[in-house]
């Protein structure tokens, strides 16, 4: 069983984490407003490389590709399971 002291620390940590996330989101939006498209060029250069690598991987691994499509399209199945519960 987790003590109250530990729980309080976890709660405090979670709040701190959320505050950081919110501060970062606000800062990022300000960057977009200030720099426009340039911001995305800077921010996304490594994302584009990662996306290209993922794409190549999926082309070479049709089974993973199939599983990903299945995961993305199973809203209906999830709802059916929820209903069954």
């Amino acid at each position: 069983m987790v003590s109250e002291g530990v729980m309080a620390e976890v709660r405090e940590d979670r709040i701190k984490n959320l505050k950081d996330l919110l501060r970062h989101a606000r800062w990022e939006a300000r960057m977009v407003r200030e720099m426009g498209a340039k911001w995305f060029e800077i921010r996304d250069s490594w994302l584009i490389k990662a996306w290209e690598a993922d794409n190549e991987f999926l082309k070479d691994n049709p089974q993973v590709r199939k599983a990903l499509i299945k995961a993305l399209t199973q809203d209906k199945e999830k709802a059916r399971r929820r209903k069954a519960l």
Partner: protein
Amino acid sequence: MSLTKALASNGYVLMQGEISEPCSLADVYRGYLAEGFSIRFMHDDVIIPNIEFKLARNALQQYSIEHAYRVVINDAHTVRIAPPELQIAYKVYLGSDKDLSDAIFIYELFKPIIRIEEMTKWCKELGVGCDWLVKE
């Protein structure tokens, strides 16, 4: 049908069925859209990113469509987006850490055009507070 024709001729593929076969489209319509589920289109063989498409299911979604903003991209393309005031209120209502940071991102990005009264109205409607967004 005209939507799927236009998408197919521009190289899009339907994830849940065969975009060029009317029978398959009818099945997908009956099995997904008519049942309130969404469908996804991807371009060529690229899975991510993809476009999620669904029919308006409630009054808020209907409002978003009727009062959509037109955003012009590179002076060439137009996309319609839900009113930011409603997007923010809805994100706050959903309430996960990611939703809250999305809410603050949208608020800060659209700050110059955000109608605070409208945003407050939607927050009240959804039973959430949004004063914390405006403070800093």
